[in-house]
């Protein structure tokens, strides 16, 4: 274990008395009290966030089990595991495999990643970072969660009925002709879309109208910038998915003839519709992840974030440019060459804001004092994995290379590096970062770090071989494959199980902390953003008094107090008045 130093509280050397400490009064936890109904119909953003958190983690588990089943099946070239496991002949077993990867993708995208950071962590943290009591529309917030549950029920219904085998993209005309509960799943995704829109709408209004005095746009924590940019996409892109899925449902049930070529429709148009949402959706997934990292790295480096304004603007730039590049999913799909060229050119421009962020995070650590707590370990592994994910995107943006790599395992590896190595790892960083605040308990640092290392190794073990598989021409969504690919698939499957064990360990450490964890101090990491200026866990009202708003990355007033095992804010009169 790394020896670490905390800036110990030495009031005498500061020439101060202990009176200068900002005391955060304890209050009644928002978690305590009330029966089931007080949770189900709560208007408290934190309770809604916690319910979201529990739901998405459940679905992550379900989606993860499907992922492991898929990986286990691919250990050998033939379709043998699923046939043996379920006693099916080869044809039926291949159908089963197709259902598994569909459910893995659909559940992970619609039920886990998209709501993971904004709806779960964002809901809990965003109002607190604003020093507010709640989001602007608490009832709409609750409606968003209830819609999420309904959408999820549709998905689960489709799962129980079996036979949903379209892939998460629901490409027409496959989705309009296959058997299976496609209409049910698309309606579920339609409902989930509105859940997402409501969350985004709430966040934009909250950030726009409820910032406390003193918090100008450029004194907002970068998490807020990231979530704000995400919310813009949620509002402007998600309705297009909603109408697309509605059209698809009607196409299937009533035979509309918009997408189905047998009725004069155009399947490529479906792909335009779908990716107009689903590419920006990629940024719904990654932007809040970047936002978490932008908050975690300065806190644990004890340094102000490097290039605040560039990072803030780059979030907005990514959100807006993200709307212009959907066609890069369609370079080989029958899109016209002219459109492909335009989309390719714009695609590269999106990589710049991402690069800016990575450079800035790295530069933030320069001359800092790096504390390798669990959230920081996840943040470092995020930079590593996201860099690979982002750079491999360059291959796919280059037109002729993409023609070769499209729909192969290279793409699978690339988007897992971004979605999982990026968003999931950032989500875990955020979860470990805010866990003491949300639940008021400290987890076991050692074991949490071990889990982080296992996840990091397992992740690379799983997905690095897939790049090589892809360049050698292994197509995705294959239930069986040529024996020549087996070596890569074996490695990948082994890695997946190693990765899975790491995730279970991380989950176990967190659950253990709920039962046996030490009580968390209000500010265990010494962060300067407002959510740490209320007690852990917060009261229903969050703050007794609206906290004083300073620059969110100025750590000079936060010193370690060994008695509290956390940081306290010290207000030297002179320093404070000098700041005004």
């Amino acid at each position, binding site marked *: 274990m790394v020896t670490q130093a905390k800036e110990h509280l030495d009031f005498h050397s500061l020439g101060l008395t202990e009176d200068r400490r900002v005391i955060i009064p304890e209050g009644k936890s928002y978690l305590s009290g009330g029966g089931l109904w007080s949770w189900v119909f709560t208007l408290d953003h934190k309770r809604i966030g916690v319910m979201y958190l529990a739901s998405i983690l459940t679905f992550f588990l379900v989606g993860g089990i499907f992922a492991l089943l898929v990986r286990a099946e691919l250990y050998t070239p033939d379709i043998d595991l699923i046939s043996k496991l379920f006693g099916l002949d080869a044809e039926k077993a291949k159908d089963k495999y197709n259902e598994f990867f569909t459910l893995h993708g659909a559940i992970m995208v619609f039920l886990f990643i998209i709501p993971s950071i904004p709806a779960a962590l964002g809901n809990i943290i965003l109002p607190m970072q604003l020093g507010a009591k709640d989001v602007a529309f608490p009832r709409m917030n609750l409606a968003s969660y209830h819609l999420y549950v309904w959408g999820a029920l549709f998905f689960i219904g489709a799962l129980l009925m079996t036979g949903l085998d379209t892939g998460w993209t629901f490409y027409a005309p496959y989705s309009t002709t296959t058997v299976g509960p496609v209409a049910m799943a698309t309606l579920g995704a339609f409902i989930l879309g509105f859940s997402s829109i409501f969350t985004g709408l709430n966040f934009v209004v909250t950030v*726009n109208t409820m910032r406390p005095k003193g918090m100008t746009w450029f004194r907002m924590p970068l998490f807020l910038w990231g979530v704000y940019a995400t919310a813009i996409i949620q509002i*402007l892109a998600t309705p297009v998915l909603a109408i697309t899925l509605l059209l698809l449902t009607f196409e299937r049930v009533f035979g509309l003839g918009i997408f189905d070529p047998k009725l004069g429709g*155009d399947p*490529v148009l479906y792909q*335009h519709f779908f990716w*107009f949402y689903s590419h920006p959706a990629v940024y719904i997934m990654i932007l809040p992840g970047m936002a978490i990292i932008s908050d975690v790295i300065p806190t644990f480096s004890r340094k102000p974030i490097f290039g605040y304004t560039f990072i803030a603007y780059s979030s907005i730039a990514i959100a807006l440019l993200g709307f212009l590049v959907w066609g890069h999913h369609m370079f080989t799909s029958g899109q*016209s*060459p*002219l*459109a492909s060229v335009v989309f390719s050119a714009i695609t590269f421009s999106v990589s710049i804001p991402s690069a800016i962020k990575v450079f800035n995070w790295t530069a933030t650590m320069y001359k800092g004092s790096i504390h390798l707590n669990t959230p920081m370990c996840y943040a470092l592994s995020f930079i590593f994995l996201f860099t690979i994910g982002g750079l491999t995107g360059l291959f796919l943006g280059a037109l002729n290379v993409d023609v070769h790599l499209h729909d192969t395992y290279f793409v699978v590896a690339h988007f897992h590096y971004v979605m999982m190595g990026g968003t999931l790892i950032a989500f875990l960083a955020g979860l470990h970062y805010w866990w003491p605040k949300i639940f008021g308990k400290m987890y076991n640092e050692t074991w949490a770090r071990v889990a982080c290392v296992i996840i990091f190794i397992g992740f690379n073990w799983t997905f690095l071989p897939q790049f090589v598989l892809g360049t050698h021409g292994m197509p995705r969504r294959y239930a069986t494959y040529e024996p020549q690919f087996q070596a890569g698939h074996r490695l990948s499957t082994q890695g997946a199980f190693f990765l899975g064990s790491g995730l279970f360990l991380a989950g176990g450490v967190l659950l253990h902390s709920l039962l046996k964890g030490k009580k968390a101090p209000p500010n265990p990491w010494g962060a300067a953003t407002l959510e740490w200026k209320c007690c852990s866990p917060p009261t229903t009202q969050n703050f007794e008094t609206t906290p004083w708003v300073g620059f969110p990355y100025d750590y000079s007033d936060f010193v370690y107090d060994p008695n509290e095992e956390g940081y306290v804010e010290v207000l030297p009169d002179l320093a404070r008045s000098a700041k005004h």
Partner: protein
Amino acid sequence: MSHADHKHHVASLPLLWATFFALVALTVLTVVMGTSDQIQLGWLDVWVVLFIATVKASLVALIFMHLAADKLFNGVVLVSALVFMGIFLGMCLMDSSNYLAEQQAYVEGQQALLGPTGS
């Protein structure tokens, strides 16, 4: 904070009525444009009709929806939604018109293949 801060823009009644009559007049104009045999503008027609619709929409947005007197940001929200809609429509139109020939060739090719029955 006093009520002085709560001043809201109140639209004047003559303005509302004038807007309404302008909208009705434009509707009549567009119907005449669209049905009259005397006025034939060819390819320009759809753009003229859309222009009239846009004038009407702007009247509704600026006066009925108070955008003219409202916070700028609300207008920005509406305009940015329209801009993204424009990008969406524009790219889809550009692309589909480019591969239209491949669709038509296929339909013709397949009909020729079935041709002998004259169906």
